């Protein structure tokens, strides 16, 4: 208890010096790019910025797949020359009645040969009343939902990167949520609009025969025009998918002087686009974005180069954003913003100032208290307190943790609580001295008896804050994190560092009475 080997002292001092070195990146510029340079990040509440919580619309992921399956079934049966009645989608699959009972077996055979996205994605069975049912498996549905969120994160990242945002953080939360943090962007309206657009572009032939009819025939859908002027019947079948785009850009149309979006297909897309336009010269071809018809020009000639242009009466910003969205790709499902928090830069600066002043004032008050009430041993506790602050900063830097305003409050409280261990030790030494023990015995007993109490009291605080970190969200986690780290550094600085200072002092001076 009263002996510190050279090695032990060297390691305690070494840890403090390493801590000091780890703090440096927060205060000076990186001298050479080869050095590891980790620093604390400021949270959005301190530097200003926006936090968006997005929810992936999982219901639409499921309905999209069902619609796809229905379309696939129709195409497969038509290609095989088989007929169907009552083709419909239910909650878990597609059902239809064969034209005649004889066709049931050929139907099953043709449908079972259909390609699946994942093995065992759906089952084809003969159901009640001679119906045929295609049922999607729940496992495949779960996998698809997971993939949809993963893919959404990727698309969100691409879209946000394209806006030039600095250091955006995009993370998954829970099953169907995405957190987007945008430092420095205090008005997230444009980002919200970009993320709120699915940007699923498809090309459909216009069903001219159905214009004017109130109920569209099978395989034809009435889609609204994007400018809100009426509706247009188009074939449900997707002739060309916008997913096959390789590039898109905004420019001013040379003929009309209007803003337009130019796009380029990859080889598959260019091939399909060429085939469809060649076969349908003179017909109208609808460009559909998120189930709205942007325009439906007449095909004058086969377009084989894989290039196209959309002119839909865009403004410059609209054309730029649309090109951005097409380049980044479509979201697999719509996203809804369900929580938004944005902080302007001036408020962040105010908070840093308020938090910094409070931290400094609290630190000075605690130091003064310890010096007045505990004398020499109080100053040793103060040295340990300073080391504590350094080590907390070092660990936060090492993890590249995010410091929030509640996090600063957590640091302050840690400093207040940290001296508790020293108070416990000092009070214990006082008691032992009062009982008439010698200086050496009193210090020994003080360390020994106080240690168990210190560990017990810190363990309960640790438990409470780990829970807070696990169940908390946002800034509260920052608070819990700094306190948790603070408890660990407190144990080190009080049980090892301040005790070492006391022991060294005793070994040097061999006092007969203690300054307590």
């Amino acid at each position, binding site marked *: 208890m009263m002996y510190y080997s050279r090695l032990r002292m060297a390691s305690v001092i070494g840890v403090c010096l390493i801590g000091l070195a780890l703090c440096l990146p927060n205060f000076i510029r990186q001298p050479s790019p080869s050095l590891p340079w980790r620093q604390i990040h400021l949270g959005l509440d301190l530097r200003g910025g926006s936090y968006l919580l997005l929810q992936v619309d999982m219901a639409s992921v499921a309905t999209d797949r069902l619609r796809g399956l229905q379309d696939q079934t129709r195409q497969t049966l038509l290609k095989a020359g088989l007929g169907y009645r009552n083709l419909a989608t239910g909650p878990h699959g597609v059902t239809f009645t064969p034209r005649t009972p004889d066709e049931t077996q050929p139907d099953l055979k043709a449908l079972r040969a259909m390609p699946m996205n994942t093995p065992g994605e759906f089952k084809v069975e003969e159901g009640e009343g001679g119906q045929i049912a295609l049922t999607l498996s729940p496992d495949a549905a779960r996998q698809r939902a997971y993939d949809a969120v993963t893919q959404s994160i990727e698309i969100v990242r691409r879209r946000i990167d394209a806006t030039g945002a600095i250091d955006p953080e995009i993370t998954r939360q829970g099953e169907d949520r995405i957190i987007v943090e945008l430092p420095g962007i205090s008005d997230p309206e444009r980002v919200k609009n970009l993320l709120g657009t699915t940007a699923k572009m498809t090309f459909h032939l216009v069903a001219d025969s159905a214009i004017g009819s109130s109920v569209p025939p099978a395989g034809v859908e009435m889609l609204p025009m994007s400018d809100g002027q009426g509706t247009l019947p188009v074939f449900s079948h997707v002739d060309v998918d916008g997913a096959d785009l390789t590039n898109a850009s905004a420019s001013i149309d040379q003929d009309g002087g209007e803003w337009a979006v130019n796009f380029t297909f990859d080889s598959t897309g260019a091939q399909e686009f060429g085939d469809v336009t060649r076969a349908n010269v003179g017909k109208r071809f609808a460009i559909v974005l998120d189930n709205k018809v942007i325009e439906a020009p007449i095909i004058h000639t086969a377009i084989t180069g894989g290039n196209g242009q959309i002119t839909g009466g865009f403004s410059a910003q609209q054309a730029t954003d649309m090109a951005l969205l097409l380049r980044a790709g479509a979201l697999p499902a719509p996203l809804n*913003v369900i929580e938004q*928090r*944005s902080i302007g830069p001036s408020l962040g600066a105010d908070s840093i100032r308020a938090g910094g002043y409070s931290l400094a004032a609290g630190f000075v008050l605690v130091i003064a208290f310890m010096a007045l009430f505990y004398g020499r041993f109080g100053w040793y506790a103060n040295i340990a307190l300073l080391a504590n602050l350094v080590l907390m900063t070092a660990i936060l830097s090492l993890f590249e943790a995010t410091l929030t305003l509640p996090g600063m409050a957590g640091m302050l409280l840690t*400093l207040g609580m940290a001296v508790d261990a020293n108070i416990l030790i000092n009070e214990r030494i006082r008691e032992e001295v009062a009982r008439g023990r010698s200086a050496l015995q009193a210090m020994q007993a003080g360390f020994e008896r106080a240690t168990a109490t210190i560990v017990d009291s810190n363990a309960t605080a640790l438990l409470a804050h780990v829970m807070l970190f696990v169940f908390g969200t946002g800034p509260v986690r920052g*608070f819990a994190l700094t306190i948790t780290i603070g408890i660990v550094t407190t144990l080190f600085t009080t049980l090892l560092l301040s005790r070492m200072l006391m022991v060294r002092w005793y070994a040097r001076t061999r006092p007969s009475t203690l300054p307590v």
Partner: protein
Amino acid sequence: MMFDRPLLRFVPRGTKINFMRGRFIGLATSAVLSIASLILFFHPGLTLGLDFRGGIVVEARTQGPADFNVIRAALAKEHVSAAGVQSFGGPDDVLIRLDTPPESEPDHEARTQAMVDSVRHAIATLPGAQVLRADAVGASVSKELFRNGMLALGISLLMILAYIWFRFEWEFAVSAVVTLVLDLTKAIGFLVITHFEFDLVMVAAILTILGYSTNDKVVVYDRVRENLRKYRTMPLAELIDLSINETLSRTLGTSCTVFLAALPLALFGGASLSGFAWVMLFGIVVGTSSSIFIAAPLLLLMGEKRLRRDARPPTRS
């Protein structure tokens, strides 16, 4: 040397205050305060913050003192009706509150977001005004945040119970947790009276004061346990008094340092943190006094028979 010896001292050496004599006064005062807090909790109830209530809050700074009528007019032009426009902090800071559309309506999330943008547009029309902060929390998220916050509180209490139970006898654990629950009700009463908004940051504050209060009780109990072994025949009331007196200097010292650390935060911490810090300060006072006046008497009541069998005078006939 001037830094060597302590200049001040909290409790004179050999202090012996008979705390256990006043144990019923302590328990009764605590019970009255806790019952009053419970009544306040049901009526008028906590002021729920944005996290738990859902809705929109926009803080803006205007050039010169804020004119609420001008702001209301600008909002009306954007077709949003504010549930409240009020000042906060300085004279040129305004806080605009909006209620979100009910959850039953389709597109309520999208409309909530659109409303935030409308408020921003309205503020942009005022010369020199800027948005300091804009928060919008949807109805589903606020319910979830509330559930998570309560879960964190509940699980922390259970973990503390389990830990003390594991380290001490069950009488200690039960009296500690009963005391913590009493502390908790008082903190809630304080929140109701002061109208501080109850949000996630307040849950953090309450958890911290519970952690602090536990810490305080563990130190006193630790001494009680030590003395139980040391003085095998001392009556429990006397023994608890002795333990409290022995640890009194430490109890007051630590309360003081934590109080001093949190005080600047309450005074200069700004709108978002001063409420948090005031609750902390209140909790430190409550937690410290409850260690002495509640947790110790409870331990005496529960442990009188079990913890101190040897102390009873031999009643052999």
